[in-house]
């Protein structure tokens, strides 16, 4: 009995001594518990769908379950705030949109500091933003559209909402072409698309995944895309850059973590996400929805977000796209 007791005490002492050492090796055995990804939208929709698709291949690579938590609200601010305030232990990540890069300039009262409280970890995907008109529209080509836009405010374009990539693509174009159009924001791209198909909205700016079916059915005509390279779904449609307007933007999903998370953990997570994104099941869905992934390492994704934040900030300042 005595021996056992002594052994137990020794064991307890050893364990106590090992505690500080254990935390120093935290990144060695990370992850030792389920990893949570906070999704800023309700279940359903592209962002949630791809995140859930990523769950299985990602947890295979991490060796721990990946939990999806939906926290919709305030165009992602609620979810991002939850990430910013979570412990920086490598078990909480969150998805951010393009608006993440514009928010510091657009929203004066953000409950967190985009650059100080959060750190970008991995790139998931970017959408192809397309400019389309109803089939019945007299506008046949992009040049027709530019001609019509010469009259200030004459062209009315609809998007899924203020502060989305589609909205910024129009602002960037207006800046580049020196024209002025009228923005009609909707509560979601689907409702804008409904009005466009019905011929109530002259110009529709939404992701190709939303308008693609209608373009194939011939009810909508895609004039151009705002992506850096041509859409895989519509390879015949020129990009705005090709047409002479340096507009290159898409709605992106990027994973972020609370600032202060161990860089070694971030490295591991970045590598796991990149591998998972490249798995067949995920790639099939990305292709079906005309989404593009970028194989960015940790440094590249951080540089990407920094550049986007600067670019969006300048755009918001220059055009005074700000709630008043």
């Amino acid at each position: 009995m005595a021996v056992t007791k002594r052994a137990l005490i020794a064991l307890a002492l050893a364990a106590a001594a090992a505690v500080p050492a254990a935390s120093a090796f935290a990144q060695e055995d990370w992850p030792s518990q389920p990893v949570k990804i906070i999704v800023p939208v309700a279940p359903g929709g592209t962002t949630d769908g791809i995140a859930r698709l990523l769950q299985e291949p990602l947890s295979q690579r991490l060796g721990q379950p990946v939990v999806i938590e939906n926290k919709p609200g305030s165009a992602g601010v609620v979810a991002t705030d939850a990430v910013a305030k979570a412990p920086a232990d490598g078990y909480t990540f969150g998805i951010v949109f393009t608006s993440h890069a514009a928010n510091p300039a657009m929203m004066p009262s953000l409950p967190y500091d985009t650059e100080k409280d959060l750190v970008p970890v991995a790139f998931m995907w970017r959408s192809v933003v397309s400019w389309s008109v109803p089939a019945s529209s007299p506008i046949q080509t992009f040049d027709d559209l530019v001609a019509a836009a010469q009259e200030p405010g004459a062209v009315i374009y609809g998007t899924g909402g203020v502060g989305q990539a589609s909205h910024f693509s129009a602002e960037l174009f207006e800046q580049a072409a020196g024209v002025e159009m009228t923005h009609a924001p909707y509560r979601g791209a689907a409702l804008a698309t409904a009005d466009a198909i019905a011929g109530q909205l002259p110009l529709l700016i939404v992701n190709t995944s939303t308008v693609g079916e209608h373009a194939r059915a011939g009810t909508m005509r895609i004039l151009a895309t705002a992506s850096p390279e041509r859409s895989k779904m519509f390879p015949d449609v020129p990009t705005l850059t090709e047409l002479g307007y340096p507009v290159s933007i898409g709605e992106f999903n990027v994973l972020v973590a609370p600032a202060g998370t161990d860089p070694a953990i971030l490295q591991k997570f970045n590598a796991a996400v990149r591998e998972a994104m490249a798995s067949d099941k995920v790639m099939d869905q990305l292709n079906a929805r005309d989404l593009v992934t970028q194989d960015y390492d940790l440094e590249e994704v951080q540089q990407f977000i920094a550049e986007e934040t600067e670019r969006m900030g300048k755009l918001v300042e220059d055009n005074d796209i700000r709630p008043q």
Partner: protein
Amino acid sequence: MDLLHNFYSGIGIAFQPLNLFVCVAGVFFGTLIGALPGIGAIAAVSMLLPSTFYLEPVTALVMLAGVYYGAEYGGSIASILLNIPGTTSSAVVCLDGNPMARQGRAGVALLITAVASYTGGTIGIVLLMAGSPLLVALAQSFGPAEYFSFMLLGLAAAGMMGSGSPAKGLAMIVLGLLLGCIGADVNTAAPRFTFGLTHLYDGINVIVVAMGLFGITEVIFGMMAPGRSTEVPRVSLRSMVPTPEDRRRAVMPILRGSTIGSILGVLPGAGATLSTFMSYSLEKSLARDPSRFGKGAVEGIAGPESSNNAAAQTAFIPTLTLGIPGTATMALMLGAMMIHGIQPGPAMMTQHADIFWGLIASFWIGNAVLLVLNIPLIGIWVQMLRLPSLYLYPTVISLICMGVYSINFAVADILLVLLFGLLGCALRLLKCEPAPLLIAFVLGPMMEENFRRAMLMSRGDVATFVERPLSLAILAVTVAIAGGMLLVSLRRRRAAQ
């Protein structure tokens, strides 16, 4: 006869044992969850959505459709028995359903509700099969101007619902519009009336408003009277059978309600919400004695309930054929399809014909299951009323708090539900009816959005509302309703003097 053949093959898919099983299970759980105060169809579908990701596409959708119908019907149970509606549509069913329950006719009310749902759903499905292209064309002739006129008509109809003073009814509508202004402005993303709270940026959730105004208030007033809440006679199968009088009164409202619901359900955003109380107002204005409404009129539940379910069916038309969800629940269903690699849209009927028809057939089976499952259960539901208020109400408070919390995991929602509960108490003490408030709260933001869009597109020309023929026609109906209301209230005043 291609249509029948397609439907027949769809029935074959829906009747596969697994699909049939999940349909029944979905309806059952949906009813159970929907009957709980604080949890509506949207919450039920979104909670169960992730668990369907591992099923076959058709099976997953069949189950979700079952949950959806079940939860809608469950909402009516809570409305009729406890006077606690979770949505605007069940707030309408409360108006006459709860008085019926208080008169000891809860069984009849629930049976008529089930039959009206089934009939409305069936008519909606027939139209869904036969008239998709036609109904899509109707929805497409609606622009911002038409939507605005249409919502104005909705508000006029909401004003007709009350049975009290017209000035108070109007005040409730205005209060609802005012509360609807809270949240970020769609056009500029400017926060409005949020008082610096991030939580209010998306506006107040309609479930929070409904649970506070109706649920908390009902519980408070229920507990003010000591002892048993209501005297409920034993419910035998016989007492559930509607009298010939009831049946005669229910038939036409069900048919009219189904028609209204089928047509309005196609309109994205507004249709399903509007159809219920449009049907209620229509029945009230057609009735020989409108004063029976609000006191347990059978027409007042038969019409709205059938229109609600018909709209639930035809709301799938824009979702399936255009890929455009009309309501939050439809958006969830759309999300479920896309996760399974089905892109709803013009090509769906050709590319995924099996899923399209399987889904439609299972809609119908879901409705039938709803009817078969619930008739024997009505007795059990009614037993709930026999519980003394002491057992029931304290638990309902906890359920409401938890249900509201589960929407967004926000403590702020729990505090808001209390504020709306206190508002509901004040309104009841002042004899103001909260139903028009709730409807205006939902319609207000859509109205503003469409008005501004219409102004944007017509370059500030207000005449656009009367220059567009469809908009003009809707406005004419609105004016007729408002005029009728004025006339009725004048006549009532003269009669009182």
